[in-house]
């Protein structure tokens, strides 16, 4: 059986950066790339299921949409134990929105026919929280978001999940499988890749798929087909935050005043 894990290479920022001349993104020089934090947990959940059921012969496949640099993140997943890695890319994909990315991932899922699909709840850079659900919509598969606990026996027709809701409430749900689950942080404790795993991953192939491999064309993706597009990225004017100056005691006294003001005391 197969578990497919959709992952993303995200960009992190330092405190100081420059916006690109076209004002649509941060200058590439200031972006630090790494595997999305949520995806570490998704992959670990897949690995947990695989390792707890050695007789089920589970294949864990990681999939990402992105350019060459994404290979580094996929290798990290291979080093942690994923069996295969697929990277989908075509220059025409540049500028795609999350719906199009979801559609591309759905096409990969259709081709691979996994028994379970995981994605992170959201990505740490763009925070749309829509790729996993968009993928499920294109697949017409059962789906659940913000999964904080999963009980699943490989090959079973259903899985029991717990979803995080507002106010600390958990919702226990039985879901038909195959399903698309977006995994929440803290569901497990992600492992570090062993040095041996890293060395072995360096020799493993990463399957490079183009749009043709998933039955799509340039017309289906890119900025032209996007239902939303970035108009401008900018740093907003400074808000209401203010530095509280003075000695430690002065600062403490001012904080007490502010709390009292807000409480109406």
């Amino acid at each position, binding site marked *: 059986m197969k578990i497919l894990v959709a992952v993303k290479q995200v960009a992190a920022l330092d405190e100081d950066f420059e916006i690109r001349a076209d004002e649509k993104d941060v200058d590439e*020089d200031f972006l630090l790339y790494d595997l999305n934090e949520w995806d570490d947990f998704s992959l670990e959940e897949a690995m947990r299921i695989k390792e707890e059921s050695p007789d089920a012969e589970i294949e864990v496949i990681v999939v990402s949409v992105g350019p060459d640099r994404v290979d580094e993140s996929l290798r990290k997943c291979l080093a942690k134990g994923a069996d295969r890695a697929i990277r989908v890319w075509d220059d025409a994909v540049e500028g795609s929105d999350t719906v199009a990315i979801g559609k591309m991932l759905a096409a990969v899922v259709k081709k691979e026919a996994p028994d379970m699909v995981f994605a992170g709840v959201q990505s740490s850079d763009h925070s749309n929280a829509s790729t996993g659900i968009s993928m499920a919509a294109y697949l017409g598969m059962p789906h659940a978001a913000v999964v904080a606990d999963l009980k699943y026996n490989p090959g079973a027709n259903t899985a029991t999940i717990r979803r995080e809701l507002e106010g600390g409430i958990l919702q226990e749900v039985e879901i038909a499988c195959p399903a698309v689950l977006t995994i929440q942080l803290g569901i497990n404790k992600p492992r570090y890749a062993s040095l*041996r795993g890293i060395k072995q991953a360096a020799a493993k192939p990463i399957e490079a798929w183009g749009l043709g491999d998933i039955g799509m064309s340039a017309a289906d993706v890119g900025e032209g087909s996007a239902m939303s597009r970035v108009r401008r990225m900018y740093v907003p004017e400074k808000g209401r935050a203010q530095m509280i100056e003075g*000695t430690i005691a*002065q600062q403490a006294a001012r904080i007490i005043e502010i709390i009292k003001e807000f409480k109406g005391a």
Partner: protein
Amino acid sequence: MGTPNGRDALVAAALVNADVYSAAGAFGAAQLSSVNIEALSTILFAKRRDALRLARWEHSPAILLQAIGDHASSDHMMQARLMRNQNSPMADEIVEQPEVLDRSLLGLVAQHTQAPKALLIKLAIEDQDVMLLKAIARNPASDADVLSMLVKRAPIQLASEIVANPAASSEMLEMLYEQGDVYIKSAVLGHKNLVASPGFMAQVQVDSGLITGKTALKSKQDQLFLRRQLAKFDLPTMLLKTLAQSEDSAVRTAVANNPAFVDVKLMISDAAPTVRRALAARADLSINQMQSLSVDKDVWVRVWLARNASIDRNTMLYLAQDEADEVRRGVARNRRCPLSLLEKFAVDDSAWVRSAVAYQANSNADLLVQLASDQDVDVLSGVAANSHTPKKIMRKLAGHADADVRRGVILNKAADRETLLPMLQDAYYLHRMLLVWNQQLTVDDKWSLHDDPDENVRFAVFKWFGDMFLKAEH
């Protein structure tokens, strides 16, 4: 590639690695050789994004940051990152002509811990921007001479920054006390450099309302504020007694913490737990006082007593049976805890107590062998870190699934080379980095990490070898 035997070989190895972090680590060793510097520069400065990362990286050595500054002298963002990096040396032209910088960079210079004294004095005398002057006043590099220039210019506006600076002189502090509000006065009283003269202390006693006088602060709250600081001083017995009877528990707690106050019995039944906690930590408690505090209803009073190095044996035995595991842990952590009690704690129901035994320097090998079969990570981490743990146990824990347990072995100074060698393959990069500095491992052992997948480890290896070669040459 074999272990390098000198600086040139190290640079050659960094060039083979062809990555930014190996080159950054070797850069210090490349000094004195323009050929080596040039060769590494081709890796370090090929991409602006790499140089930008190194410019802000807290591990970048000064010589590398200086080279980045020279290479990208017209790149404002690069210069700003360098100015924020506290390892950056200050370029000569900035020291001589700070006015060539724009205001944002000058603001960063003012708070840079490597800003030369002459530059800080120049800015302190000439600059008109209060925010910049405040940055200088906060800068730990500003010594008493720099601060005195600021005091001359705007004592009130800069008082809260100056009074928080560890370099403020006693004379300066007394002046700020005179001119400042109650917050400044209080901060002055809390400053470690204050050498309180009898006259000054008499003034504070009047201001705080402790002694009648014209300068007493009008607000009772403000008087209390000063008394909380005053209670920390070596005052005459009668004054401390008066403060010990204050209605304000913070004042009484300050007295209870004050070693100059010797009349502990006055406060032993104080209503405020904070006061009794302070007493429980004192070194001069009588046996009766310890016994009284050992039955205190506040758990933290008993915890502080349990940790007290002056505790008597009977009180310790009594607290060893306390229902709160924090208290039993306190006893188990106490350096005077006897082996007989540690043996009892080693089978305590609470893992928190057992872990204290595992970390205890008094625990012997037999006890640690017994604890090594524990399942709790805190307990095993303590066993791994304890220098009395037998080698065989340490080697077993070196392969434990939990990173915290393995780290205990790495940090254990008694861990020998044979124990540490397998840990060079540890999955957690920080552990491999720590091993680069370990004194038990040989240079060949360490060099095996030179092509590590993690950039931090590669940097650490090249930096360690570079420093070693430079040290050997000097």
